[in-house]
């Protein structure tokens, strides 16, 4: 930022305070009503709510498939379905969970709702593009469902060639569906980056940006740069299957390992598309419920960017036994270890934030504690897998399955649930049953560990993944794991139950039930259609818990504008006191 420029353009403005309404008559849900208003809305909050409903739906579809897979594994041979059905089920479980749930869950659902509120903006930078990205997602999902009903796919979510280019079924259609969903992801990324750059409210400098926004910023960079590679790769598979152009299939002169390079060039960074927004939620929730300034703000913010950057350089760690050069394996292993460092820094910073805090274990924080343990285990087993010699043994075994479920479910889903519980009052205007929320969190935590801890043991004992039949020595572990998955499923059902129930019978929420200092809590609950009645002026940071609550009521600038210009360089005056917003 050009400081000389900014000081010459800075101006003094008078600031008034106003208090948000707890239950305003008019809010984003009733200012426009009717189905058509929802379907054509450009309001980021409604789009966020629609995304949240859609990803929840696909989470349950994917979850049911997981339960069917686990049930089939109750016995070493066939339990109740054929091998081919089983193969289709685990493929769809993976593909649905990754492309239709994990990737859009935090950014497109919670991010859409919360990001503009945290920036003091009326909407995202390109509201219509935002709606388009929702419809692309739906279109892709329908194409994928069509593929499932019309032939099915049994390639695994990784679509490895030449299996995927030679097997029967609707691989081409499925791949086309994922291709479309990819564009939804790219558009969301473009929208968020522009919004963060251009629509911050006056006074909201980069060092006052919430860590959730920072994490979405890092995520968006990956979405924009990595997703096109997936799109191209999937297009190449389509060309190979339809036109018979030999790119990956050696029978036609192609190179099957090339596919793995292309695929993981997207899909490894994609892992961070899934988890980095979760990190943002963790920072918000920990700071709010310990009423403490986040420890190491810049370390957390920049480590997200560092993870985003390094994540592009580690794809080869999925290929240590693929036959790639030993030198390549060495370099990829080294870089993979480097990702561990910024991730570790985050964990330490979050722990340090609790030091001398005022910790109130409400359900969002309880989910974060669940995240903390599960993600720690997921991360450390990632270190095990990054070590080449250990990966040679553990690659494609249940150890890997357990590892990524600890990161993706234990980390990302727990963070998502924490976020949903944290922002639920703001989104719906209702409070859920706190006791049930805590019990459900406990059930999920226990169920998760019962499901996936035995898989680490099976994996290091040598049990390969994607096995329909297995040798008898693994049966006890599989059975414990299956029982755990039922407990886990019960926990998720319970969450669904009390959250939906709260919509009808929940207590009305106040504007700021958690006493948070973050900007989205300083407006009405539920928020007005255009978020802010006046352009807010940002004087304090979102984690300034050492300052009294009164200072956080929104500043209102006297000068008017459309709220869409970058005005973050101006100096503001608060209650007659001059404060430098920089």
């Amino acid at each position: 930022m050009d400081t000389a420029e900014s000081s010459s353009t800075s101006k003094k403005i008078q600031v008034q305070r106003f208090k948000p309404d707890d239950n305003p008559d008019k809010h984003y849900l009733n200012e426009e009503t009717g189905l058509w208003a929802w379907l054509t809305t450009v309001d980021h909050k409604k789009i966020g709510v629609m995304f949240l409903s859609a990803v929840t739906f696909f989470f349950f579809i994917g979850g049911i498939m997981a339960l069917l897979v686990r049930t089939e594994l109750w016995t070493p041979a066939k339990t109740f379905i054929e091998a081919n059905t089983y193969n289709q089920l685990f493929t769809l479980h993976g593909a649905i969970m990754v492309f239709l749930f994990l990737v859009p869950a935090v950014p497109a659902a919670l991010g859409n709702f919360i990001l503009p509120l945290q920036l003091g903006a009326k909407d995202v930078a390109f509201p219509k593009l935002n709606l388009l990205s929702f419809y692309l997602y739906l279109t892709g999902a329908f194409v994928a469902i069509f593929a499932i009903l019309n032939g099915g796919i049994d390639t695994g979510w990784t679509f490895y060639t030449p299996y995927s280019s030679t097997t029967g079924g609707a691989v081409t259609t499925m791949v086309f569906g994922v291709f479309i969903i990819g564009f939804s992801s790219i558009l969301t990324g473009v929208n968020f980056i522009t919004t963060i750059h251009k629509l911050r409210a006056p006074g909201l400098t980069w060092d006052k940006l919430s860590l959730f926004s920072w994490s979405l910023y890092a995520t968006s960079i990956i979405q924009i740069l990595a997703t096109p590679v997936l799109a191209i790769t999937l297009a190449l598979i389509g060309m190979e299957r339809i036109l018979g152009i030999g790119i990956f299939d050696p029978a036609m002169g192609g190179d099957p390992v090339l596919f793995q390079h292309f695929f993981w060039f997207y899909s490894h960074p994609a892992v961070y598309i899934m988890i980095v927004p979760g990190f943002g939620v963790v920072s918000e929730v920990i700071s709010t419920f310990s009423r403490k300034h986040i420890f190491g703000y810049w370390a957390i913010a920049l480590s997200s960017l560092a993870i985003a950057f390094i994540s592009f350089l580690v794809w080869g760690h999925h290929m240590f036994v693929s036959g790639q050069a030993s030198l390549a394996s060495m370099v990829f292993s080294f870089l993979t270890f480097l990702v561990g460092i910024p991730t570790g820094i985050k964990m330490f910073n979050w722990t340090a934030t609790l030091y001398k805090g005022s910790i109130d274990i409400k359900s969002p924080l309880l989910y974060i504690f669940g995240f903390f343990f599960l993600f720690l285990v997921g991360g450390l087993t990632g270190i095990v897998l990054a070590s080449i010699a250990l990966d040679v043994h553990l690659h494609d075994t249940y150890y890997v399955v357990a590892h990524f479920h600890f990161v993706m479910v234990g980390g990302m889903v727990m963070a998502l649930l924490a976020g949903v519980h944290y922002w639920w009052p703001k989104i719906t205007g209702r409070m859920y049953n706190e006791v049930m929320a805590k019990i459900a969190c406990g059930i999920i935590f226990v169920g998760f560990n019962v499901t996936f801890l035995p898989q680490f043991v099976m994996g290091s004992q040598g049990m390969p993944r994607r096995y329909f039949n297995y040798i008898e020595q693994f049966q006890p572990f599989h059975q414990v794991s299956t029982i755990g998955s039922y407990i886990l499923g019960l926990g998720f059902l319970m969450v669904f139950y009390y959250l939906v129930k709260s919509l009808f019978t929940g207590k009305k929420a106040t504007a700021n039930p958690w006493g948070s200092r973050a900007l989205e809590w300083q407006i009405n609950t539920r928020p007005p259609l255009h978020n802010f009645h006046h352009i807010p002026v940002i004087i304090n940071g979102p984690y300034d818990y050492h300052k009294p609550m009164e200072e956080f009521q929104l500043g209102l600038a006297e000068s008017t504008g459309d709220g869409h210009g970058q005005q973050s360089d101006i100096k503001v005056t608060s209650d007659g006191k001059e404060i430098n917003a920089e």
Partner: protein
Amino acid sequence: MNAIRDFLLPPAKSTLAEQHDTLFWFVHGSSLILTIGLIAVLIYFIYKYRRKSEDEVTPLITHNSALEVTWSVIPLILVLIVFGWGYQVFMNQQIVPDDAYEVKVTAQKWIWQFQYENGAQSTGKLHVPADRPVKLIMSSKDVIHSFFVPDYRLKQDVVPGRYTEMWFNAPEPGESIIFCTEYCGDGHSDMLGEVIVHEQDEFENWLAENAGGGSQPEDLAPEEWGEQLAQEWACTTCHSTDGSQMTGPTWQGKFGSEQTFEDGSTVTVDENYLRESILEPNAKIVEGYPAVMNTYQGQLNDDQINAIIEYIKTLK
């Protein structure tokens, strides 16, 4: 300690397995200490700093450079150790000793085939000498497979259109299971095999007996040999012999029956049809079954095909 070792890892039956296991315990041990440490601190903070009243004010602690450098540098050093160590063991797994005994491995849906220097062949069972480095030169006929022996802590993808290598040295005679660990279709989880480690002279005997490969053992009738071949060549992974539904049509009652194909034509199953089905499986596709079978042209000789046909005839 031994109980934990046996609980978590399969027996170590190659010279490299021990090196892998030492690193395995080092990383898991230090991870466990870190986990317990961090969770203990977390629990302590949660208890010590629990909210006691609603108007508590917390101090402003933005960062602490010394602390942050410490908790960045110490993990960095640790992961660099794990990296270097892991790479060193990996290089030991990669560099094949000069005197290694070579076996050629061919993978296809869903069998492992092994070819030895004197023309001997085996399917499903890899015979190797004890206490001598063995090098596998591997290739696939169809999709990617992966050769995994948990007891040796070794795994290598087997890719169509190129050769990949791995080597091991099993000091003691014994058996170890082989898994396919790259998903390859309906029979993926049945694509198992076994490494059989013989004493050196026992191995020489086995090799001599099977030189040339593919001739009928003297003590077996043709249909008995056919049954054995059907097992070894994993025909029975897809074709049941008791009428149950699998990837391919069952063999029970097949001979002499009327077979209907995808294009609606029919044929009465005889020797010629069975022979064609083995050598050119995609010439006629049986109605209701996927065209996934590979040709056995050049793999099964005429005597073997005859024996398998004799065996199918017995399955009434």
